[in-house]
């Protein structure tokens, strides 16, 4: 088991990023991998806890102490096996997951946590490099067919699990490319799209069929799916953006984050975006409303597009620099996070709420008026705190309010829960027989680890339901 005293001997060390000046000039990833011997030391910091809180803090239940130990011992291929045992796409999570495991790491009680995410990424990257990651087609077919609607991480995880168990799986994606939010929502500099492409190739080799450009409920009636397939899995995500209903919202130049990010991703893919439709931060003063990860993605994208100035507005007050006592270990800590995009510039405004937008004569947004507000839950305006920012582009990155109800969900008539997400039972089945739901569509907007985890669990539910779990995993 690792090195019992490693945590006392070695400090935490991460590879970090390429310099800001360099990385903002391109759209590629800019992570710097740690050399193998340094990673070995980092893995030696794992204490192989009797109760590994990291493992429990991870929605996937990744076998973190186990793969740390294997890396420490140089058994990379076995580490990859351990990693894949709970996680279909560690290269996604190794790049995008905020790592609640590290927040729950026991070492983190008094010292910097083990660099779990970095080790995870190193394992899977090496797996691809070495050619260890190969398709795993099922030993035998079950003769059951499943349609998966959507192709984000939940959909892909679910589809892969089902295909490996022997189902005939078809993935329906309304866009032209597979990946969902991963493809168009996550900037290329955080996840290069080739990662998705090779997983798609792997899945195709495992028997998954991909149907892109098919919007179920629009291009294809849901009933067709229900009649053609033994089961249908809804994994269409939580795509309904939260809007900001303040005076001036109708002005031009106020857009949703996903519109902005999607366009840039298309450009990176080589697609043409017509000028009339283009949303570009180039040379503009940009206000991003929303202080979360999407906001940060917009921030990084704006800088790469060459914005003149970028403001990121957050209604919550600035969190403390270290773990807030209200979120004690091993909970996900409330604390100030400085993402790579924040390092690249821009100004963060805390505890502010937008009052209105003001535009020019052409109806384009030119000014954002905001005020300071008290902390939650009241968010009471602070008297005489109003101020304004001169802006040319406003990006709304305030999260999502649930799945799009029109079309697919309405046609099916599935029951929703109080929060407007699709309601499921213990087998992940919706109120409509043989129709299942997973991912953000079922849980509401969440982390990629939850998407993969729930995609896997939904697959188990489907298999249970199909009576196939006896033969399955």
């Amino acid at each position, binding site marked *: *088991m690792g090195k*019992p*005293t490693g*945590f*006392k001997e070695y400090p935490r060390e991460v590879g970090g990023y390429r310099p800001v000046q360099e990385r903002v000039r391109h759209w590629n990833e800019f992570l710097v991998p740690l050399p193998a011997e340094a990673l070995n030391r980092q893995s030696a910091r794992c*204490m*192989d*806890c*009797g*109760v*590994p*809180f990291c*493992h*429990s*803090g991870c929605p996937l*239940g990744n*076998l973190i*102490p*186990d793969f740390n130990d294997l890396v420490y011992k140089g*058994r990379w291929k076995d580490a*990859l*096996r*351990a990693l*894949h*045992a709970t996680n*279909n796409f560690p290269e996604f999570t190794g790049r995008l997951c905020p790592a609640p495991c590290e927040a*729950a790491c*026991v*070492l983190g*009680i*008094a*010292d910097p946590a083990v660099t779990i995410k970095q080790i995870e990424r190193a394992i899977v990257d090496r797996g691809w490099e070495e050619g*260890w*990651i*190969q398709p*795993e087609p099922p*030993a035998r077919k079950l003769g059951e067919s499943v349609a998966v609607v959507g192709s984000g991480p939940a959909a892909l995880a679910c589809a892969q699990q089902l295909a*490996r168990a022997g189902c005939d799986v078809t993935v329906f994606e309304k866009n032209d490319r597979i990946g969902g939010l991963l493809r168009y929502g996550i900037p290329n500099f955080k996840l290069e799209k080739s990662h998705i492409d090779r997983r798609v190739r792997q899945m195709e080799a495992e028997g998954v069929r991909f149907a892109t450009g098919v919007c179920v409920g629009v291009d294809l009636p849901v009933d067709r799916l229900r009649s053609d397939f033994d089961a249908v899995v809804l994994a269409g995500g939580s795509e309904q953006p939260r809007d900001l209903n303040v005076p001036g919202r109708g002005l031009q130049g106020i857009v949703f984050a996903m519109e902005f990010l999607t366009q840039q991703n298309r450009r990176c893919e080589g697609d043409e975006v017509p000028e009339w439709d283009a949303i570009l931060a180039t040379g503009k003063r940009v206000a991003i409303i929303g202080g979360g990860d999407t906001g940060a993605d917009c921030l990084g994208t704006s800088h790469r597009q060459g914005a003149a100035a970028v403001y990121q507005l957050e209604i919550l007050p600035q969190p403390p620099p270290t773990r807030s006592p209200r979120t*004690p*270990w*091993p*909970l996900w800590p409330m604390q100030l996070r400085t993402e790579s995009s924040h390092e690249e510039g821009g100004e963060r405004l805390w505890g502010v709420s937008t009052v209105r937008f003001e535009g020019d004569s052409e109806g384009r947004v030119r000014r954002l008026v905001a005020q300071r507000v008290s902390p939650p839950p009241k968010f009471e305006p602070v008297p005489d705190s109003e101020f304004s920012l001169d802006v040319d582009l406003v990006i709304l990155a305030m999260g999502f309010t649930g799945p799009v109800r029109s079309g697919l969900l309405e046609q099916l008539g599935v029951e929703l829960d109080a929060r407007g997400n699709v309601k499921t039972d213990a087998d992940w089945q919706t109120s409509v027989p043989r129709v299942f739901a997973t991912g953000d569509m079922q849980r509401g907007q969440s982390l990629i680890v939850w998407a993969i985890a729930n995609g896997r669990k939904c697959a188990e539910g489907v298999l249970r339901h199909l009576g196939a779990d006896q033969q399955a*995993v």
Partner: protein
Amino acid sequence: MSDSLEPIQRGLPPAQGLYDPANERDACGIGFVANIFGQKTHSIVEKGIEILINLTHRGACGCDPETGDGAGLMIQIPDAFFRKECRKIGFDLPRPGEYAVAMVFLPVEPAPRLACEAVLEAVATQEGLEVLGWRDTPVEGDAIGRVARVSQPYIEQFFVRRPEGMDQESFERKLYVVRKRASNEVRLSDIPDREYFYIPSLSSRTIVYKGLLLAPQIAKFYAELTDPDVASAMCLVHQRFSTNTFPTWNLAHPYRLIAHNGEINTLKGNVNWMHARQSVLASPLFGDDLRKLFPIIEPGGSDSACFDNALELLVRAGRSLPHAVAMMIPEAWVHDPSMPAERRAFYEFHAGLMEPWDGPAAVAFSDGRVIGATLDRNGLRPARYEVTHDGQIVMASESGVLTNRPENVKAKGRLQPGRMLLVDLEQGRIVSDDELKDSLARRQPYGEWIARHQIRLEELPEPPHVHPTDHGTLLQRQRAFGYTDEDLKFLLIPMAEKGEEPVGSMGYDIPLACLSDKPQRLTDYFRQLFAQVTNPPIDPIREASVMSLVSHIGTERNILEETPQHAHLLKMPQPILTNADLERLRRVSQGDFLATTLPSLYLVDGGAKGLERAIESLCRRASLAIKAGYTVLILSDRGVDEEYAPIPALLAVSAVHNHLVREETRTQVALVVESGEPREVMDFALLIGYGASSVNPYVVFETYEDLEKNGLLPEGLTAKKASENFTKAIGKGLLKTFSKMGISTLQSYKGAQIFEAIGLDKAFVDRYFTGTPSRIGGVGLEVIHREAAMKHAKAFERVRSVDLELPIGGKYQYRRDGEPHLLSPEAIAKVQHSVREGSFEKFQEFCRMIDEQNERLMTLRGLLVLKEADNPVPLEEVEPAEAIVRRFTTGAMSFGSISREAHEALAVAMNRLGGKSNTGEGGEEEERFGDERRSAIKQVASGRFGVTTNYLVNADELQIKMAQGAKPGEGGQLPGHKVDEVIARVRHSVPGVTLISPPPHHDIYSIEDLAQLIFDLKNANPEARISVKLVSEVGVGTVAAGVAKAHADVVLISGDSGGTGASPLSSIRHAGLPWELGLAETQQVLVQNDLRGRIRVQTDGKLQTGKDVAVAALLGAEEFGFATMPLIALGCVMMRKCHLNTCPVGIATQDPELRAKFQGTPDHVIRYLFYVAEDLRRHMARMGFRRVDEMIGRVDRLETRNLEHHWKAKGLDLSPILHAPQMPRRIARRCVIAQDHGLESALDHRLMDLASDAIEKGQPVQIQLPIRNVHRTVGTMLSGRIAKRHGSLGLPDDTIRCRFVGSAGQSFGAFLMRGITLELEGDANDGVGKGLSGGRIIVYPPKNAGFAPEESVIVGNVALFGATSGEAFFSGIAGERFAVRNSGATAVVEGVGDHGCEYMTNGCVVVLGRTGKNFGAGMNGGFAFVYDADGSFADRCNLGTIDLEPLTEVDDAVRVRSLVERHAALTGSPLARRLLEGWDEALRKFVKVFPKEYRRVLAESARKLEQEAVRG
């Protein structure tokens, strides 16, 4: 029958609830007196009775103080007396030896009595004896206690005449047949009250008087014993201390041939084997009569009774009594190079005939012609003797039981381990052990027989083919046998690396096997039993000389004969077979040896029925194989494939074993297991315990090969070496497992079934594991099959690159898809958040996680529901939390195992709360005594670390730790690198020196020893409560009853899940039971015995919530202990790394860097315990209880949840836990009165009176008093008083000088404080100067003694045990285990018994004479200087930790000389004078015993001093 309102039952009650009479234990005092020349006098009988009276304190009495546990005596037939008496009745006796007399217990009512008499007469007549007549034995009913009186049988004597022409031996044999037949016939008859019928003796030589008596009552009850005509040349006596208060006349000793002090640990196996070998018994002496003797072992007897039954058979069939005794209780011969070869051959030959009856035993025996005694190989019972010039010998558990004029005393000695003392009354002389054993050894050319007929495995021819490793299918097979990743990580690889069992820490918190949803292995349903209180565990490492893995396999022959063929056995040095070994065995064809392989597989598709049929067929095939002449049956599960699953190896072995035992063919074959399943110590222990001789764990070997092939073995380790290390590790682990139960040899462990099952169906157990306790029912074949099928299905799934090869496990470490843990990450976080934030709401969320085991069942308490009242009481009427928390204690965690910060935080919290914290076994810094960092409970454990008088007086409670939940039956070890300055100071040791806690307390080998230690501690601190900590196992209730009778104030029943700083993994998981069972059993047995009212009951073992406390209270506890949870409150996150010193939260570590990370505060603990109390109050309100006292023992307020839905739990029946014995209302269910400790009669009251000026003003005082063996623990109360008044410094040297004349009782000068000198002219018993704390003890024989002091025993066993400072001078020889665990005292003695200076860590011992064996075992510190007159000392040393060297240093020479001079001056020792006269010569013969570690540590500190001097 009696028409009283409360019929008092007779004998042991039937099994009920959790009580089973099979668990009853007893211990006692034994003794005999004899005239060596065989002269019969009445005075011998009188003296015997006097001995008995002087041993009274070794017995006990129960709820009725006038009713003893039993006493009795055996004498030669008083011919003159009977002649006279019979003439009065109307018949004349023939000449002595031509008639026999039976002592007969009969029903009281005339009709059944006459019926029984008729049976006896009829049988005697049928057997050709002439009935002479009956004599009513006059007894005085008023002389005995009420309970004894009500259960008293009618007692008569029955006389028969020896037929013409029959010699006396044949007559005795016939009498034996008559007794057995009559007993069987009455037992099987329908005569009412037939259970009264019992024949204590029927012989032409001896007669036994016994009964449910206290020693002083016997002569009054059996009035004839005072008749001057009752004359005998010998009198053998026994005083019993039993664990119960049930009236049992028959179980008093002596039996027909013996009286026994101790316990036979291997009884179940011995009885089974005796039963099994009945079929091959034959004896020309008995002829057809032999069948009439069956069953040889009479049902319902105690261990001693069973032993007597077997011994009697051997003797009546022709062996001499000493021969038979030596066969049943052999010396430790395997590892003793100094034993003559002939004698070793004798033992080895007999080892092939019969397994030892193993356990602590002092057995006194007599057939009327010889009288003697022997001691088990460990010497675990005391036995002292004295011979006078006028031909009298006295032997007893204590010295001083008879007073002889000093000048008449010829020799004083003690019985030594494995040795025999024999008086031949016909020859009129004492036969020495050597002479006796030599003559036995020369009876036959045993050595030659062995050389000619014994086969050795290694001598068998090389097999042509050995199964190679099949890498391709290994993974499948590993999966089919239930291997997990953890098995490799925690078991196989560590064992391969280190050659020993891996160590872990913290407790067990996963579901019981019968509740787990994961497929379990059958072995997981079993728990090891262990010794506590009634017998001691053994230290298998330091006392390895008594341990043995050797066994002999082959057909067992008629044990009533001895022939060369009896040596035709295969000798196995240890039980694990390599693949090559197994092939050798499979192909064996020498003499009788012929092996066959029986496949142990079943068609998995056939389901449970198929499994059942497969087992049946396996048993049938075993029978057929025996008929066909096979003598070795190899049960093999090779050949697992997609269709065939393995029958669990344990099930296969035990089913076949029990089947063959029933068939009485078991002794004709050896069972060998070839299985892929066994891989940890527990597996092997179980297989052997259920009958396997040897085991070939082939998948383990293949796994090592596979790991090697894949480069996964640690560097430099080959698969071959790994397998060897594995074999070594398992061997060590097995010895440890045996030793936990006090068993020394594999031969006697085999088939002894020393296990308890938990969660197995009764019918299943009765059928396949006959005789194993399984008290709450559970799963049967159906589930066992399902679990096998689950693993089998998994095995043949394809393994993909995204699957783990083996299941993750999750038993040792939490994993989400593994076994659930009570202390899950969520639960730990929740409770920590609650106490840090002060949120009772979060605490209640935590409680719900623990209490509501709706989805996953974990614990027995989780299956119990609290019954709510129809009329709940308002919460505010429930007693406040402040009152409840006073019942709370924290568990014993030593300073050393946890950091000072954590230790003090617990103490402070408990003091502020009004509860009690516990020091653990590492002592406590004296600075803490005066303030709130003081622990109210001071623990006294086997290592006695830091146990000084001052420590004892600074306690509110003294806890004697008999066992620990995480590792019952084991000791512990604090490695030297963890012993820093502070810890060393507190533990009175040297920094850097490893500290060993022995498995047993060396002053507690039995229940009466425990009573003695309780008495010692109570004397030291009369204000403190004395508590005894036990661990839950079957029979713990019985032990607790014994503890109550030994006058403990509190008994703690610990559960199996308690934590530990370091313990072998197999102990954490496989020993001990949940507290629910132990607590319920304790409550039931204490109530049944009317003992509950005088003892408080405490429980602990992962108590977490108010509901846990409620369940504990309802099951019978009035106090509650917490250990893991307070640590969690302080920040523990269950790292389970305590043993590595790397605790990252600063709790279980001494590393200053890590200790700095400790974030806990006393408030966290206080809050946690208050929350528990608050949670409890809410349950109480709902249940309608206002006070905790109202709840205690109210099992009627618990019910079992509906378990129908759970595939395993549905078979459980918790009603035995919820059983309440039917008793009248006045019998207390909780503690209502204080124990009577009998301190008022202590001699120390006089000492304290006489020394009051010394105590108060420091004025020197001199005291002179006579002393007797009934004066126990002299000087201790006085010492406690001084420590309380003056602290650890005591008084100036020699302030109080006491001079005694006589024989001192046990524990003379225990915990004697500085400032007191005890001088004794005479001798002393066991435990002299134990815990010596600065005082001085001087013992020498009477000046006019008729013997040489240096050749006689002057003090008993375990003198100076755990002494921390002070001096002792003994002019004479000391018993076994002299100065064990001495950590600072200086002593001079003229000879010592075995195991001298064992575990010593500091101090200085000078031995001027011969030492026993195993000197200096585990000695890590201090010095010993031994005068080695004949240069043989080295042979008797255990050189594991010590070096021997000549005395070359001047300092040493000066030191030894000055000590010898003082010895001469203080004791007048003639030996010392002689040595001093020729000092230069003498000095050359001294050997210095220098512990290796001590040398290193001294050198280091010298170097440090030097460096400092240079710098300074």
